[in-house]
């Protein structure tokens, strides 16, 4: 049988991969099957078959990349205590995975009392979520729920009013360019983000 045995092993693995429904397992099996073919390509009479080795390498690379993506999509996400506290207020809009993506591009900061969170007349290049503390009464009218700058963010016009803290506030800030990049890649996340804005906007329209 000799080197032919590797063809049989590889094809049995390919056959098994076609029998499974789970894409992760299917990719693992085809990856191993691909590797099982390599000894055949090297040691077959007249070998090594460089073209076949080249294509095997391409297929395996694509498979490895997709496996890496799948692994990251599927692995359970553990939130830190701080993340859990923030997630509580956003859990009706975002899945844990979506939240962790937002967390990665956001920045938590603390602003002392009587400080400006948002200046009047500036370009709305950020959106801020109030996590703790309160804003001055005149500023509250320009907030949408706990979101600061949401309306200017939607209209893309210069901010109509400055927003000031009344006491020390904990905030989460997202930059527009970072959000735009993330939303381009993840439409589902953009839908969830929009739902959050819609909810805040609907409350404001009703008031």
């Amino acid at each position, binding site marked *: 049988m000799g080197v032919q045995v590797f063809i049989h092993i590889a094809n049995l693995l390919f056959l098994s991969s076609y029998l499974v429904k789970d894409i992760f397992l299917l990719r693992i099996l085809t990856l191993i099957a691909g590797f099982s073919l390599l000894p055949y390509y090297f040691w077959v009479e007249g070998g090594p078959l460089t073209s076949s080795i080249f294509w095997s390498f391409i297929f395996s690379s694509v498979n490895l990349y997709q496996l890496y993506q799948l692994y990251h999509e599927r692995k359970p996400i553990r939130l830190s205590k701080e993340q859990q506290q923030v997630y509580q207020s956003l859990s009706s809009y975002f899945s844990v995975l979506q939240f962790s993506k937002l967390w990665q591009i956001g920045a938590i900061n603390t602003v002392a009392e009587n400080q400006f969170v948002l200046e009047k007349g500036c370009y709305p290049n950020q959106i801020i979520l109030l996590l703790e503390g309160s804003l001055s009464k005149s500023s509250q009218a320009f907030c949408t729920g706990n979101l600061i700058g949401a309306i200017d963010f939607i209209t893309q016009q210069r901010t109509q009013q400055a927003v000031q803290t009344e006491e020390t506030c904990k905030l989460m800030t997202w930059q527009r360019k970072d959000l735009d990049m993330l939303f381009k890649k993840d439409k589902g996340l953009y839908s969830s983000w*929009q739902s959050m804005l*819609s909810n805040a906007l609907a409350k404001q329209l009703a008031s």
Partner: protein
Amino acid sequence: MSSFNIGDKIPKDLANASVIDENSNNLKLATFWKEGPALILFIRHFGCFGCTTQMQAIAPRIQEIDALNIRIYLVGNGNPNFIEGFKERFQLYNQPVKIYTDPSLEVYKKARLTRSKLIAYGPTTWYERVIAFSKGYSNVNQGDNGQMGGSLLVDQEGTIKYYYKNKTVANHSDPNTVVEHIHQFALQQKSKNN
């Protein structure tokens, strides 16, 4: 003219065109935006995989759009007796959506939506069909197969705030883009009222 622009007024012929409900009652399209802004989603016939694709995209956003005071209307082109099955299939009984139909295709024509057998049976459609079937969507002919759908957001004065003409059978407006326009519109209305 083959399309509408944002800010255009709905032409009289479209406003006066009729659709029918599941009991075969006639209704002028203009009544849709008489009491408030309306999002009109033109689907194809009620049994097609393109309609399913469009509904799967918009259904999760219905409550959200309704909360922003936008009335949602679906217009198909099949017989009125197919409306009931469509409602059941997409569980629209308790949803803030009204469904009508226009088997004459007059409303579609006046809304300047595409009608093409070439598209309906072209290679893109076959590709879309394979994708749709892989997702488990069925396809039963319940109306004009060549008629493509579209989306129309109209304010109470009959001004077009968003317009989209579906390019292929399974192509439809991106719900995120629709909601973007609704946000803009809701804020315009709010500043008007203030």
